């Protein structure tokens, strides 16, 4: 660049534009700005007595403003926009993880003190005030969900087999695929109202039973099972099928002996996730399965309490707080039941992952 410096007819602007690289901020610039923002936000926090949250929020705002400003001064507009968007996207991630952590922490901290052997093994029968438990609701949830699984797993898997093996490219196949997708968006309360209308028409206006809840849940569960099974079946290589056909094996034996065993890990994972999804559904069970205080083992007769409905009613009808206690007894029970429900859902999710790992087709 000696020519640029010595030549008299070359203006400084032009010389600058002839440089091959623009100046860059050092690699540690974001860290420096982050430390400075946290420190700068600490000052008003201490002076005005803000909470930890206020401190972090102000630090975040300062960081998002300062780093692009510095970048604008040194690196120019395009880099500044890039740094701004990077900062925003990272903070979107941080802000979104916050509610999950907060929610889990709240449920665990408020629910853990409620859980006891009595809470898990007593029903609410004849309980006034504190005491009582979730035994009847646990039984109800397990029975209703099991019946829903029995209804939806065969239908879901067979429908997926139809879509992948028989109906590929046909008009009916395309319609079923499309409507299954649309069905995943049915509001759960509509599924409950459907089951209610169906059973009320069949058995009279006072009919309420756990089985109605199973029908409603299976309406929500079938599309999930179909989608996941369909994806797994599509992953089975066509070579396997063709090898089987070449040996003279009929199509249905090929499906049951070659295709399904290959995909079984993924199918079980999908089914487990579907169960985890519907076990926490509240609205349909509120409508059709109702609520009782006693334990009911009969799916086809009388109302049946379930865990989510139990939480809802403990929240809306919490009872009266005994003197000297700020919270009515129902609220504590609601937190306890919420913890049990979350544990069930998370265990099912983990189980699905483990099953997926165990049954995953061996490579190589």
């Amino acid at each position, binding site marked *: 660049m000696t020519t640029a410096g010595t030549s008299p007819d070359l203006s400084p602007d032009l010389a600058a534009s002839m440089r091959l690289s623009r100046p860059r901020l050092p690699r540690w610039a974001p860290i420096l700005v982050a430390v400075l923002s946290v420190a700068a936000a600490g000052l008003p926090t201490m002076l005005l007595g803000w909470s930890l949250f206020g401190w972090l929020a102000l630090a975040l705002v300062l960081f998002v403003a300062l780093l692009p400003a510095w970048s604008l001064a040194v690196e120019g507009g395009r*880099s500044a926009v890039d740094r701004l968007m990077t900062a925003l996207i990272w903070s979107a991630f941080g*802000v979104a993880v916050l509610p999950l952590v907060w929610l889990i922490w709240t449920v665990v901290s408020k629910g853990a003190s409620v859980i006891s052997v009595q809470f898990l093994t007593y029903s609410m029968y004849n309980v006034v005030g504190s005491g009582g438990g979730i035994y009847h609701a646990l039984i109800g949830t397990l029975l209703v969900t099991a019946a829903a699984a029995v209804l939806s797993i065969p239908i879901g898997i067979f429908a997926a087999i139809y879509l992948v093996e028989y109906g590929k490219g046909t008009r009916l196949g395309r319609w079923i695929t499309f409507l299954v997708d649309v069905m995943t968006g049915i*509001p759960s309360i509509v599924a409950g*109202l*459907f089951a209610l*209308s*169906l059973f009320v028409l069949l058995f009279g206006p006072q009919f309420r039973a756990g089985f109605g809840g199973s029908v409603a849940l299976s309406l929500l569960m079938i599309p999930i099972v179909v989608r996941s099974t369909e994806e797994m079946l599509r992953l089975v290589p066509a070579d396997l099928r063709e090898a089987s056909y070449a040996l003279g094996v*009929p199509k249905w034996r090929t499906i049951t002996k070659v295709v399904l065993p290959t995909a079984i890990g993924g199918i079980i994972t999908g089914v487990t996730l579907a169960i985890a999804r519907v076990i926490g559904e509240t609205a349909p069970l509120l409508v059709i399965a109702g609520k009782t205080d006693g334990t009911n083992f009969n799916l086809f007769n009388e109302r049946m309490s379930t865990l989510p409905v139990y939480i809802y009613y403990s929240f809306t009808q919490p009872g009266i707080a005994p003197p000297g206690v700020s919270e009515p007894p129902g609220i504590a029970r609601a937190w306890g039941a919420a913890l049990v429900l979350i544990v069930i859902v998370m265990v099912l999710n983990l189980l699905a992952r483990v099953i997926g790992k165990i049954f995953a087709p061996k490579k190589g």
Partner: protein
Amino acid sequence: MSATTSVPEKAPERPAAKPPRSRGDRLFSGAARAAGLTILAALAGVFIFLTIEGVPGLSQPTSTYAPNHDFLSYVGPLIYGTILAAVLALLLAVPFALGIALFISHYAPRRLAVPVAYVIDLLAAVPSVVFGLWGARSLATWLVPLHAWLYGHLSWLPFFAGPPSVTGRTIFTAGIVLAIMILPIITAISREVFAQTPRLDQEAALALGATRWEMVRMSVFPYARSGMVSAVMLGLGRALGETMAVAMVLSASPVVTLNLISNTNPATVASNIASSFAEATPAKLHVLIATGLVLFAFTFAVNFAARWVVGRNERRMAR
């Protein structure tokens, strides 16, 4: 001997292209087809049974619709509340959801991206009744100061006209809970579309000197536009139909108001069904089922449109 001679005579009767089908084969394919048709029948059944039980709800004695007087004036405020809550939830959730999706697909180091995606999926697994409990007992109390602040500084906007609720159980809080609940589905779908952007497009943009954001804006967004639209619409469908969280957070009354932070909040269709179901008379039950039918038609239309956009996009990409 006669059997061997009859075989070549019989063979031409069958079309050569179709292999022989055993009884097992016919049974199995019949069962598979029946399962597929069951799904169609179930969907049709939802329409039919809701209509049978819901249509009487359109013309009940006026006292059934209290405090209003006919079906339209009963369902109107509910639809308004539903749309208000859903739009609020979308406004809050969409920027975050797209940000997280971009974070997972393009910004995060791989070691971080996989666990983050898993955590977001876990958010989708939390039952709605737990969200409702948390929203009503924890989040609402915590948001009370924010309500007061919004009223103090922004009360010239109709949304924050106040007076602010002292419990925090407002449509504003409900919108935030809904936003958290629909975040995972929008994230999951847009993440997949972002990840499918052709590698060469992105590398070409970077090679021309684009910064990472310019690359995202010029090669990822145009490719993913219809996918993003349908992700948002699916989120909208979810928000329209969400029941328990809204029913537990809101203390509702049948009003039409833009005010987000006061004590009088419009209910949504779904939350109204859940909260007035237990005390409903048979006549009122028909009315509630009719509102459910309206909700179903509404969400069905939104989901139908969203899936149609996705399907059209997939066909375009396949070509």
